[in-house]
């Protein structure tokens, strides 16, 4: 049984088909990159994984559970922008991840110390201790995204969803963010879906790269046919498959 399973999912807005017949199974701990032309429905797919919207047909489930109807604690998310709360300091944003689950969004006194320790540990981990008391607007784009990722991880989601998280960053910062994300991922072993418009980034970070595209074109009305997953590349070992086949099946080397 796969960890995330997407079974025959369709999405229509009005009579416009955006996605159709999307099927994919993902194992726990896999890093899935999603690429495709702009406007082909990548964010729509991510919103359905997030349960921000429900598919018009088909089902998405995590770990065999019933399909979710609204976003919740088991799915973390980082968007290209606006993923942190502008009215809270950096530290406040991390503490929010601890406090928002309580009935009034405030930590009870006895839980405060432990939460503050965890927030401090995350601050150290994402390298933002020196700006802990500043507001997000005064941080650079890279720092804001580090904060957004750290905040999402504090809620320990089962699946992390990233929608072009580095799309607004300059190339140098983007490379740093790649290292940062890969380290975090090695530490936590979490399952990640990342939409990107940068093919190179997709192959560099992902275990698999899913390509979304329209399988065929309706000659009269392009809105009739939605996009689906047209390729599912194995991106491990620099994208060259079967590199480790001899380790897995030593008997093949016998002859």
């Amino acid at each position, binding site marked *: 049984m796969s960890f995330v399973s997407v079974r025959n999912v369709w999405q229509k807005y009005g009579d416009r088909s955006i996605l159709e017949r999307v099927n994919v199974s993902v194992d726990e701990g896999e890093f899935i990159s999603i690429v495709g032309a702009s406007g082909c429905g990548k964010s729509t797919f991510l919103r359905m994984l*997030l349960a921000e919207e429900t598919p018009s047909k088909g089902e998405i489930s995590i770990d065999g559970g019933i399909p979710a109807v609204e976003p919740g604690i088991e799915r973390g998310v980082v968007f290209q*922008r606006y993923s942190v709360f*502008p009215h809270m300091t950096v530290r406040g944003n991390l503490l929010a991840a601890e*406090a928002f*689950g309580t009935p009034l969004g405030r930590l009870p006194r006895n839980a405060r110390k432990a939460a503050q320790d965890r927030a401090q540990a995350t601050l150290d981990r994402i390298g933002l201790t020196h700006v802990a008391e500043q507001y997000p607007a005064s941080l650079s784009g890279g720092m804001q995204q580090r904060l957004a990722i750290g*905040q999402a991880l504090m*809620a320990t989601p089962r699946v992390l969803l990233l929608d072009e998280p580095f799309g607004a960053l300059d190339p140098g910062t983007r490379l740093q963010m790649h290292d940062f994300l890969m380290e975090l991922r090695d530490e936590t072993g979490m399952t990640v879906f990342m939409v990107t418009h940068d093919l190179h980034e997709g192959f560099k970070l992902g275990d698999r790269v899913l390509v979304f595209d329209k399988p065929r074109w309706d000659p009269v009305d392009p809105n009739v046919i939605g996009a689906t997953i047209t390729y599912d590349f194995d991106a491990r070992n620099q994208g060259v498959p079967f590199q480790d086949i001899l380790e897995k099946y030593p008997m093949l080397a016998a002859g």
Partner: protein
Amino acid sequence: MRLINRIPNRPGAVLLAALPFVLLLVAYSVASDIRLTANPSDKLLPAPSTIAATAERLFTEPDRRSKEILLWNDTVASLARLMGGVGISALLSLVIGLAIGLLPYARSLFSSFIAVLSMVPPLALLPILFIVFGLGETSKVVLIVIGITPFMTRDLAQRVLEIPKEQIVKAQTLGASTAVIALRVALPQILPRLISNVRLSLGSAWLFLIAAEAVASNVGLGYRIFLVRRYLAMDVILTYVIWITLLAFIIDWLLKTLSRRAFPWMEAGL
């Protein structure tokens, strides 16, 4: 150099800012002087010195009959009505605005109703308010509330709707309930807007207050102005007008300072 690129230097800017005030004062003095030389008992444009003397008398000398200083009584009564009305409006608009902005059910329920309500001219309702609530304090406060709440509510609801969807989704992925999203995500972000709405609405609030006091009252700044109009006491009227302007200015300044102190994150990006 283009006119749009010409910028006054610091002393020049101060001078320019002061110019309209000085011109107004000079124009008034000259006009008053002309009338008073023609007819020393003219009441229409009292000399600035007369106004100053009247102001001093109004602020310090108690009334002969009641032994109280009327101007202070008027000020306290008017400010209490103003604060009451504006306070109730602020609270109402905050609660309803949050509900409309966050809850689709509340949006369906309220938004057209409030759009229509904001078209009703409040002063036309004044007679109804006097009939329903009597001539006391209630009708004056209610007039202010009816007059400014719809605008403030619509604006706050709009502000809540403008909060990026990403933030609302993010809060949900951190486990936030509707109440937590309202209290910890939406509310703090619209509080600065509430204050600027109050600042904007205070002008209308004064208008409604003075209108209501002029029609039916026995104390209040608006009441006094309309009372002394019968004796053509321009010096008293002008003193009251200047005093009301000063009060409005001080309240506005206090709110502006409060906003700057209370919401440091607003300026973090500047």
